[in-house]
């Protein structure tokens, strides 16, 4: 069992109503954290979570040819470094789920 801290930004903390929280996970990847642990804990907004974070096809999370879910313009950092969804979580990891960053218009 490993303990990880998850941080939410922008519209994600609006959806979940929380900016960060901890999870105890059993030999899990980031994909499993995003697809199972987080929506299970926040069951009331699980559909909204999936639709916001992942690309979906007819309401189902889209999967790539490697069997990994496809993020919808979101990025994942683990302890400040960009990371793939198949990363296996380690004790003490800080996972930040980043929505598209928002700037001003150039024109």
């Amino acid at each position, binding site marked *: 069992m490993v303990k990880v801290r998850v941080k939410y*930004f922008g519209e994600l903390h609006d959806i979940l109503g929380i900016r960060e929280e901890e999870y105890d996970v059993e030999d899990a990847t980031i994909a499993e954290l995003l697809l199972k642990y987080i929506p299970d804990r926040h069951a009331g907004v699980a559909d909204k979570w999936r639709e916001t974070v992942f690309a979906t096809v007819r309401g189902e999370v889209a999967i790539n040819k490697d069997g990994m879910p496809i993020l919808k313009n979101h990025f994942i950092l683990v302890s400040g470094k960009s990371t793939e969804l198949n990363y296996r979580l380690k004790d003490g990891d800080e996972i*930040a789920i*980043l929505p598209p960053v*928002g*700037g001003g218009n150039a024109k």
Partner: protein
Amino acid sequence: MKVKISDKLDDLNSLLNEIKETSTDIGAIIIFVGSVRGLGRDGERVLRLEYEAYEGVVEKTLEKIISDLKDKYGIIDAIVEHKIGPAHVGEDTVYALVASRHREEGFKSLIELIERLKHEVPIWKREVTEKGSYWIKST
């Protein structure tokens, strides 16, 4: 090089003096000031913006961008400050200063710095208008 995110930006003149003192080789200082516009994307009246940031990562990302610009254009130095928290119409939200030997590389660097700031640096902006509030995405 200096980067900072804060709920209160430093005085712009003090930043200008600070970057001037970096080197006697400086021949141009180009400054960008971002401020809160009173009209939203759909023409509605803006009440305020609310910025939030992934602190720590913002600073590292900005330092990397400035370092890249030094390598690419040979600029002498840069300072970037970005506001977090609420910002009202007319309030300054970004100061970016680039010091270079000549104006050409300064202008190019500043444009690239701001574009990368808007697209790569983990800062999010919520626009609060008279009709509601929205998270803004880069375009």
